[in-house]
């Protein structure tokens, strides 16, 4: 138990500190965006008084530190503020107040779309990387497998937006199997939703799998050269039994860690893939909001993505810690 505490506590603490540092950086970067929210909201033609009044409503007259603390505590409590873009200038003019849309209403549907995409990618990824990793490690002397390994190596290097574009060209433009735009909010039926999910999910899977196969392969090969596997083979156990009972359980730990690391890496990939396929998820919303300077939405999405990234890294770190017996003693 003390070991667990010593393993978990400092890492969780570091993750929390990182989150605070990242949140401050995000807030600071968003502050630096050109123009301020009040003028952006009211448009260029607004009078000085209107801008001053709006600055008060948006609390822009407060010092930055106070606003940062206010924003962060609001974010933690689930109050993410209101989007600047969805407010219509005409309604502000007529009612004097703001016709606004809470950030959460805008972001949460996008978050669930991205989670659907990530889940679809993981469903393909886990069996594919496990099987390919095992097969390429066990049969590495065969010619076909060495070609497969070379292909995997090439796969790790190709950027996901190139994979995405090529898949789009082949399966959507040429063969017309899948729609070129994955506007899943407009999907009429479940089959239509699935056909829209296939290309983005496969793109993400290919980009992740190549790397995971590589890691799985290395870790299986290391285990197969270990003394206990050699002993098990010399004891006369069947090859199948050696692989299932001795190799697989010992090789799966590092593979698990890579999977969690891949989740963190997925954050970047998801932004690119969503843009390629016009997928209405968090990543594309982030890019759109940055271009529209919709600061509350940018802050909320950047925080969500950063939190997922940091928590995934923490998870990978903890898995590595629990799997390393040398850390457990002493």
């Amino acid at each position, binding site marked *: 138990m003390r070991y667990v505490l010593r393993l978990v506590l400092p890492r969780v603490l570091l993750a929390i500190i990182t989150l605070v540092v990242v949140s401050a950086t995000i807030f600071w970067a968003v502050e630096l965006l050109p123009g301020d929210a009040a003028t952006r909201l009211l448009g260029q033609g607004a009078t000085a008084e209107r801008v001053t009044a709006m600055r008060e409503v948006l609390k822009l007259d407060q010092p930055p530190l106070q606003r940062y603390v206010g924003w962060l505590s609001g974010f933690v409590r689930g109050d993410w503020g209101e989007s600047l873009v969805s407010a219509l200038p005409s309604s502000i003019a007529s009612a004097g107040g703001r016709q606004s849309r809470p950030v959460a209403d805008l972001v949460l549907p996008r978050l669930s779309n991205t989670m659907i995409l990530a889940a679809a990618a993981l469903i393909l990824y886990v069996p594919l990387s496990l099987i390919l990793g095992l097969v390429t490690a066990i049969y590495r002397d065969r010619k076909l497998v060495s070609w497969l390994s070379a292909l995997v190596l090439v796969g790790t290097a*190709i950027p996901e937006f190139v994979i995405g574009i090529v898949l789009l060209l082949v399966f959507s433009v040429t063969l017309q199997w899948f729609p070129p735009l994955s506007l899943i909010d407009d999907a009429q039926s479940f089959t239509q939703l699935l056909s829209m999910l296939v290309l983005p999910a496969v793109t993400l899977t290919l980009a992740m799998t190549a790397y995971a196969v590589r890691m799985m392969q290395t870790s299986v090969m290391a285990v197969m050269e270990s003394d206990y596997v050699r002993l098990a083979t010399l004891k006369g156990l069947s090859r199948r039994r050696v692989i299932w009972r001795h190799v697989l359980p010992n090789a799966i730990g590092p593979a698990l860690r890579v999977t969690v690391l891949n989740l963190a890496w997925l954050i970047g990939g998801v932004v690119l893939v969503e843009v390629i396929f016009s997928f209405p998820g968090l990543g594309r919303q*982030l*890019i759109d909001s940055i271009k529209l300077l919709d600061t509350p939405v940018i802050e909320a999405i950047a925080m969500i993505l950063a939190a997922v990234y940091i928590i995934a890294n923490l998870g990978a770190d903890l898995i590595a810690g629990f799997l390393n017996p040398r850390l457990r003693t002493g």
Partner: protein
Amino acid sequence: MTHQAADSTTVLSVPGRAPGSVRRSWETIRDLPAPYLLATAVLAIHLLVALTGPLWAPFDPVKLSAGPPFTSPSPDHLFGTDNFGRDVFSRVVHGERVVLLLAFSASGLAVLVGASLGVILAYLRNWVDESAMRVVDLLLTIPPLILSLLLLSALGSGYVIMISTVAFFFALRVLTVIRAAALNVVTEDFVTAARLRGESAWSVARREVLPNVMSTVLVEFSLRTGYAVLFIGGLSFLGFGAAPPTPEWGLMISEARPYVTNAPWIVLAPSLALASLVVSLSLFTEAISEALGLGSSRVRDV
């Protein structure tokens, strides 16, 4: 396992030399399997195009109406023309220099800063090293792409800012790798001997430590250049990198995306150029890493 064996024979056959020194590696590169040699050849072609491309590219890369818009590939326009009638082949050829220059600058800066700090910290091994590594650990868990997007849109997307941002995130990773390699060296007897001889810290770091981590530095440079091509390409693809009408490949791919249905060559040409560059760089890194006896499996971290 095999790497260790190779290392020990190296040590035996060349007494007094640390394993993985640079000079012996050319012979090893020569004996590598065909895919690596092919990759090295492809990489050489890319470098040649970057150096000489603008001299022989048939058209000005930003000249509008070099031909009718959306001309499919033909002898006049090898990769066709784009929506503005610009020659896609000339744009890809000119883009090579932009892509490589940006990537080399970012990875060069990252390796310079990261390797120097890594060697210094490993040499110090005191509270400065300890606390610096805490900070590095913290910075390493910041998501690079998300923060780069925010910083670039806030600070403006000039090349200097982009290169510094990318170099910052890469330098952190280089630092940890080089520091780990240098830690193995500073405990060696010849470093202790140099210290006892009364050599200055600077001289020990430069003459004893640095030459022995040089192979790791080289591999890091090659590896990070590949990552930088990917990362900067991604930034440009999302509209946060090079500005139009620069013939940067990531930007070209994103600009050509709307025409993928009727003019696929506009998007295909820069995509294939980018893919072949990154793949050849990655295989080349693998090759030199193998040749320098450093092994190959490493964790992707960007």
